[in-house]
């Protein structure tokens, strides 16, 4: 397991995270039509190795005007397996 410091937005429950997703979609007008492929501006991720688990959105410039200034927090990830390794 590795721990990374993530800059972004943190949510305690899945409902809070989903509300954040919907707020961002509303801000950017996504999806624009029923025929469009783009369904979301951003998707929250769930931590799998943090206890207790939480949801988060990694910062991108376009998110500041929706969610405000981001914060730093730590997320645990499985050890990544690169090419040539098993």
């Amino acid at each position, binding site marked *: 397991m590795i721990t990374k410091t993530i800059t972004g937005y943190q949510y305690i429950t899945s409902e809070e995270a989903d509300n954040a997703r919907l707020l961002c979609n509303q801000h*950017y*007008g*996504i999806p*624009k*039509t029923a*025929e*469009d*492929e*783009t*369904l*979301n*501006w*951003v*998707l929250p991720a769930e931590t799998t190795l943090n206890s207790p688990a939480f949801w988060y959105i990694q910062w*991108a410039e*376009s998110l500041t005007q929706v969610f405000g200034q981001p914060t730093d927090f730590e997320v645990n*990830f*499985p050890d*990544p*397996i*690169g*090419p*040539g*390794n*098993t």
Partner: protein
Amino acid sequence: MFTTPFTFLKAAGGGATLLLDAYPGAKRAYSVRKLSSTYAGSALRVRRSSDNAEQDIGFVGEDLDTSALTTFVGANNGFITTWYDQSGNGANATQTTALFQPQIAADGVIWTINSKPTIYALNTRSLMTFTAFTTTEVAQLLVGKKKTAITDRMTGFSGNAVTIAGPLLAHWDDNNIYFQWKNYYSFPNSSISSTAYEVLFGTTITTSTSQIWRNGSSLALSNNASAIADIYSCIFAYNENQAYYSEALEQELVIWDSGQSTNSAGIQSNVNAYYSIY
């Protein structure tokens, strides 16, 4: 440079022979050029940054319709929502989340290599997925270049393995060119420290041996029998969700579920005749 009879064959309409007309049977085929005379669909679906409207962009002859693309995008950025599958299997590569979509134009300027349009897979976020498949034989074609630095990655087809290695064709950040497939992976003995334009082609030879080609030349390999998750499900990233993303300009990704070793020279020659890589 390899030359084959296929280089000189002409398709109806006067253009060069389309890749999949000469080498049919692809499982997935994504490109900025037309690959098959029987394919009648679009090349890409593009989202523009100004209002998030989307539009399909097709071909003019065998080329991407860059006039339609420029008209649609205007002075804005253009992102790929769908890279249409030209193999006939209808397995389009898609990305439904805006922040994870690769780019085709920045500030109204189409990304290009050698004046040919290209897709820019942005490190840390670009990923496209398609209907997954497994295979015991495979041949992978990847055309493009690392974006800027030799520590960038250029990745073709990969999968959704998390706990063990997955399938792959890539020019990696350690400069090795990896070709991994069911129960095996291979890589050159000597790394290639380069950000140059390249065509990579990996193919199974037998059930336990493989071969990698770069710009028409075969590379010396190290082969290692290992447990590999043999499912293919994505492009631009190694193993979905493992944070190994491409930082690359990529123009063509084709995968066959059969070894194409006897066609390796012809396939690379067909690519080079269009893109002028080497």
